[in-house]
Every structure is written in structure tokens, then in C-alpha cells.
């Protein structure tokens, strides 16, 4: 064509485009492998498995599609010898194949996801250790119900420097309650149920090592439960923008052996243990048989 746009058929551009796309695919995939999810410390490994399955499928799709894209750009660049383009522009068979094919790949992902979601979001087991997380600009207060297993009433008019969670001391259930600031301690291998409420704006509790994230919504109580399977000290982050100090709203989660946990309880919250006799009294009867 005499009036073709000037320089538009230069082979350099097509070859460069193909090479750059291929290079991006290779580099981005190689580097992906170097960054994994944070070390797992809970029973939610099945979420990781699903993540890796999706990574495998989408990763393969990404690599194959981009390689193919690079290839067709290289192969069908305009200045190749005998270049001709085809008028062919419809194929019901092909279109049906990739429509159904995509759906067929997605359906198992959707259902596996829904089953896992059900498992994660289902009711917490009876023997769970229950703690109420209270989010505030910019700190976490963890409210333990004490030996009676019941949280004392809170009243927003009682919020004060020495009563960060607005606990109503006149409520009998509050007598053995106690509060930890920016520190949460739970025993290993026992389900932990975290109820949460916010004092001011929205926050989100994020336990990167436990695959746990849940928003704290003012006016509502939200909850999550999970089972820690590894002892140690882990970071707790706020994942929902909550103000200028959002980035430093950090706490620690200590996971202890059951025996250490009891020891720690009696060292730090004698009132909570004193009336209870055995600290494990809130555990359900071993078996009904």
C-alpha cells in the first residue's frame, strides 16, 4: 500500500513487543516464586492449598496466554514476507470452546471456595477460647471474659483513660474480666474465637500468619475463629484505614502451650483463675458416652 502509515510496518517493533512480553512473563513468574505467603501458624492450611491451586491455574493461563500473544505478534507482523491477513472472523466451535472451557475451570474453584468459606465462617466449636477485641484509634484492647466465660456489660459513657473498653464494673459478669492492650495470648491447638467491636471508626484485624482478617464495625459485633497450631509471637495488624495512625496500630499475638497458658493466666490474672478452680473449666465435657 502506497499510503500506509510511515514506518508502521517496521519489523523491529513487532519483534521487540514479542521479546518484551516474553521477558515480562519469565521475569514476573520467576520472581513470584520468591515471595510466598507468611509462615502458616493456624489450621487454615486448606486456604493456602486453594490459593496455590488458583495460582497454578491462573499462572499457567497467564504464561500460556502471554506467550501466545507474544508469538502471534511476532508471527503476524506486517512486514514478514508474503504477509497477508485473513478475513476469517467467526467460529462458533472455537467461541463455544473457550466459553465453556473457562466455565469448566471456574466451577470447581467456585465450589471449593464456597465449601472452605463455609468451614471458615461456620460457628466456632464449643471449647473455643473466647476473647473480645476492641479496636480504637490506634490500639487494640483484648477483653477476656475470665472464669465465668461471660463478658461484662460495656457502656460507651464509661470510656476513660483507665477503662479503655468502657466496662461496667457494676455488672457481676465483669468482676473477673480483664484486659490486655496490644497483646493477645491464646493457647495452641485449641480453637480461638475472637469477637470484635470498634470504639470509633472501622478497623480490621489481620493475623497474616493465621489467614485471618475481619473488619471491626462500630455498632456491630463481628467474629472469627481459628485454631493456632504453632506456638510463638506473631504480629497483629490493622488492615482497614482507620486514621492517621492506621499504620502503627499494631499488636502481638502470643500462642502458648496449654500448660504455659495456664501458668501465664495465674501469673497475670489471678482473679480470673481464682474462682474457677480448674482454668479449663470452660472446656466442654470430654465426651457424652
Amino acid at each position, binding site marked *: 500500500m502506497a499510503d500506509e502509515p510511515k514506518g508502521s510496518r517496521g519489523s523491529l517493533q513487532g519483534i521487540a513487543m514479542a521479546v518484551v512480553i516474553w521477558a515480562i512473563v519469565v521475569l514476573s513468574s520467576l520472581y513470584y516464586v520468591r515471595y510466598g505467603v507468611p509462615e502458616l501458624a493456624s489450621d487454615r492450611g486448606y486456604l493456602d492449598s486453594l490459593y496455590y491451586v488458583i495460582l497454578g491455574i*491462573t499462572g499457567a493461563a*497467564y504464561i500460556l496466554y502471554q506467550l501466545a500473544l507474544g508469538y502471534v505478534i511476532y508471527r503476524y507482523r506486517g512486514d514478514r514476507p508474503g504477509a497477508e491477513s485473513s478475513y476469517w472472523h467467526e467460529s462458533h466451535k472455537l467461541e463455544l470452546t473457550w466459553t465453556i472451557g473457562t466455565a469448566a475451570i471456574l466451577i470447581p474453584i467456585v465450589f471449593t471456595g464456597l465449601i472452605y468459606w463455609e468451614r471458615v465462617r461456620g460457628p466456632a466449636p464449643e471449647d473455643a477460647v473466647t476473647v473480645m477485641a476492641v479496636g480504637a484509634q490506634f490500639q487494640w484492647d483484648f477483653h477476656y471474659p475470665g472464669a465465668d466465660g461471660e463478658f461484662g456489660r460495656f457502656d460507651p459513657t464509661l470510656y476513660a483513660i483507665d477503662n479503655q473498653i468502657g466496662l461496667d464494673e457494676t455488672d457481676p459478669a465483669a468482676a473477673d474480666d480483664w484486659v490486655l492492650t496490644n497483646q493477645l495470648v491464646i493457647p495452641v491447638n485449641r480453637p480461638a474465637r475472637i469477637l470484635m467491636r470498634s470504639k470509633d471508626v472501622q478497623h480490621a484485624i489481620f493475623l497474616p500468619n493465621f*489467614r485471618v482478617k*475481619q473488619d471491626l464495625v462500630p455498632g456491630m459485633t463481628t467474629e472469627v475463629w481459628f485454631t493456632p497450631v504453632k506456638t510463638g509471637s506473631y504480629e497483629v495488624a490493622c488492615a482497614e484505614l482507620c486514621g492517621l495512625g492506621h499504620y502503627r496500630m499494631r499488636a502481638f499475638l502470643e500462642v502458648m502451650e496449654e500448660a504455659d497458658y495456664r501458668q501465664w493466666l495465674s501469673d497475670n490474672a489471678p482473679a480470673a483463675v481464682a474462682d474457677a478452680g480448674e482454668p479449663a473449666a470452660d472446656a466442654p465435657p470430654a465426651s457424652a458416652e
Partner: protein
Amino acid sequence: MEHEKQGFVSKYIFSFDHKMIGKQYFTLAMSMGFIGGILAVLIRLQLGFPSQPWPFLENLFPVGMASGIMTPEFYVSLFTMHGTIMVFFLLSLLPVSGFGNFLIPLQIGARDMAFPFLNMLSFWTVVPGAIIIIISFFVEGGAAASGWTAYPPLSAIRSAIPGSDLGQTLWLVGMIFFVASFTMGGLNFVVTILNLRTKGLRMMRMPLTTWAQFVVGILGLLSFPALAAGALLLTFDRSLGTSFFLPAGIFIGDTLMPHEGGTPLLWQHLFWFLGHPEVYIIMLPAMGFTSDILATFCRRPIFGYRSMVYAIMAIGTLSFLVWGHHMFVSGMSPFLGSLFVVTTLAIAIPSAVKAFNWLFTIARARIQFTSASLFGLGVVSLFVTGGLTGIFLGTNAVDIQLHDTYFVVGHFHFIMAGAGLFGAFGAVYYWYPKMFGRMLSERLGKIHFWITFVAYYAVFFPMHYLGVSGMMRRIYDPNVYEFLQPLQPVNLFITIAAFVLFAGQLIFIYNYFVSMRRGAPATANPWNAAGLEWSTPAYPGHGNWEGEIPPAHRWPYDYSEPGKKRDFTPQWEA
């Protein structure tokens, strides 16, 4: 249809001509985009070099960067306004209001939009909105600082963060202007396309760009009122003491708030009922541009035209049924979450149809590499990369870990921002001759493409690594967390790449403005394209065609038809 002679004011300022209004939107969107880009550079400056002093910046931002160190509240304002400006004032205004207005009448064979006065009014309604948004940087407390999503109570209670004072009020007022303008535009799009098509231009002969703008018009009309309602109610909560989004018992700054009875989740539902269709308001035109550009420069009909149209409709419809996927861990009922997974992943099907149709358009082609076609090919690559990461986030069980991390930031910068932006760039390179009667510099265009494409991947792909490793969004200094400290080199790399990306856009701005006067004069149809818009004169005047409006004899994709002398048959030729 006669058009009166125009003076300076009626031609360049209060113009009724859809092309001039389109270009006005362009100028506005590009200026806003430039500001949004500077905000991005500042965000990356902080993340690449956390809390390092930059004394020279104190002169520019005496409060936000007092003694040269960025304050956390300034950082929060930066990403809030970056998101707001980019999503609404660049990525919605440029492809939709800008190109929609400019192209729809040209592509369907109409002298103008159905309601030229409304069109002018819609532009002059968004201008005050943009000005208010910019002014908000200079008020007491700074610009809004509750994220572009403006979740209450942070956005509702003035003492929650400095930006929640006057800055947030101006944000809301600005958004209400924007919504008013955008719904006027949407109405105009739908009415114009339904009523003003030239003889022979059946709906199924329309270019995919027009199809996309048609669906976008409907999406805008149905979704933006939800944001307007939300913004109005939030303004009431802030100023009149109502409690639509505020429950009892909120305690901020040693004060118990007097509100009771509302819930913040209501805002999230209203916001995302707009927010998700909004993503497709940005995406669909880019898909349309890409289809038109690829067909022209592959010298091949677009593959699977019918399924492309159905895919646009399917995506448009589904976009109203997926908003809850932004709220999996928000405290919304988990059952509802499961429902949204199904609708969300269903969108992957029409998206895959588009991706494969593009691939098969490129295959068996004779590709001409122009700046426009390079950006079109870029869209295809970015769209697939960003689309696939959506599968992680749409699966609620996996979203738990990735929610509100940089994985999300990487994802939407590819699929929405990236494909949207590359589509818009491609469209500018492609239709610039019609806009100004001159050609853009191809040499500068290609340099712009290569810098943008490589830097774009370099900036946004590593964000997935950050997200998988657990780095949260919207944090001022990730190094506060021990588990994020090893990621500092990645953040530094992204920051350097972001500076390159920004610098690359200066080439585009230079090219755009200098070529208006100095570019090579364009012919009427410089790309040998088949669409109806190329039947207008090289620099169409008011009314678009000098004589009769040509009828449409065929679809706009007749390239390389066997047995024809030329490798394209224009839509207006029998």
C-alpha cells in the same frame, strides 16, 4: 441542518459542538490526571524512602511536609485524592465523557449529540466539581483523608482525622457535581445512540466502541445515583446531625458522639453499588477502543463481533450483581458473600471471550505497528494479567488473606487503571487526526509506549508479591511491621519504576500539545480505516459532514475482504 457561525466564546468555551466538548473534557481530564500522577509520585516517594527528609519539598507543602518529612495525615490525603482523581476525573472523564462525546456522533453518523445544550451543561457542571476537589488541598486540615471509598465513620466524623473536616465536605460536594454531570452525559449517550444512527446503521453494525459507550451510558445512569444518594446522606450525617451511617456509642477524641441507629455497612453497599459498575464504566470503553484499533491495524475484521457485543452486555449486567465482593470480610452476612462469589467469577467468562477474540484477531493478521496498535496490544496483555488475579480476589475463601493488601492494588491497577489508561492512550493516538486535523509524532508515541509498557509492569506486577507477603494497603510506613521489613527493596524498586513511568507521560503531554500546532497535517483517513468516522473531512467542522450524512452499508470491520482491490471497504461504501 444549519449551524450558526461561532464566535470565540461559543466555539471554545460554551460550545454546543460535541467534538469541542469532547476536547474540553480531554483537557480537563488530562490536567486532573497530571495532578493525580504527581500524587502517585509522592505516595511512592514515602513508600520507597519511608520518612526521609526532602527539604526542597517543604516549600511546596509547608504543612504536609513540614521540615521535609511527610506527615501521616498528608500521606492519607495523598492516596485518597489520588484514587478519587484518577478513578473519577481521569479514567471516567477521558474515555467516557471525552471520547464518548467526541466519537459517538462521528461513529453513528449524526451531526451532534441528541441534546447539545445538556452536553455543554454536563461539562460545565463537572468543572466546578474538579475545582472544588483541587481547592480541598488548601483548606484547614487538608484534603479528604478517608480513602477514595470514604468509609464512615472516618469520613463522617470531623474529629476522626484532619482531612475529615472541610476537606471531606468539599470532596462530597465535588462528587455530587461529578455525578450530576455524569448522569446528564449518560442520558445523552443512550438517547443519541438509540435515535440518531444514520440510515443503514443497525445496532449490530455499530463499532464496538459505540456499543461500549452505549452500555456505559446505561451503567452510569443506573449506578451513579446510588453514590449521589450516599454522598447526600453522608453530608447530612456530617452537617445536620442525622445518623444514616452512624450507630450509637461512637467515641472519638474523648467525646461520645450523639448519633444512633445507623450502620456504616449501609454506606459500603451504596458506595459499591456504584463502585463496581464504575470499574466497568472505565473498562468497557477501553475494550471498545482496543477492538477498533486492533481491527484497523491488524487489517482484519474483529474476531467474534457478535460474541464481543454479547460479552459487553453480559459484563454490564453482571456488574450490578457483584458489589458485595468488596465486602467479604466487612461484617456482611457470609451467606450473601457466597452469592457474590458466583456472580463475580461469572464475569470471568465474558472476559475470557474478549481475551480470546482479541488473540484470534491478532492471529492471521498483518499487524502494522503504530503507537495506537502498540497500546492496543498493551491493553490485551494488561487485561489478561489483571483479569486472572481477579480470580483470587473473587474467591472469598482466598480473599480473606489478600483483602486490603497490595495484591488488590496490583490487581486493579492492571485491570481497571492499566487497561483503561492504555485503551485511552491507544484511542488518542488513533483518533487524534480527527480531533485536531494533525498527526501525533509516531516516534515520540513509540518511545512513550515502550517506557509506559515496561514501567507499568515494573511498578504494578511486584505489588502482587507485596500483597502475597501480607503488606496492607494504605499504610504510611510498612517498616513498622517486622514481617514487612524484608520487602523494602521491592518497595524501592517499585518507587524507581514509578518515577520512570511518570516521566514517560511527560513525553505524551509534550507530543499532545506540540502536535496540535506542529504535527504533520492529517488526511481524512490516515489509517485506511473502515469506520464511518473516517468519512468526515480531515478536520471536521461543526455538523461533522459538509454534505449529506453517508449511510452505513456494512459493519465497520471489512478489512482484507477476499476479492476486493483494496484491503479495506469503508462502512459508507456500498
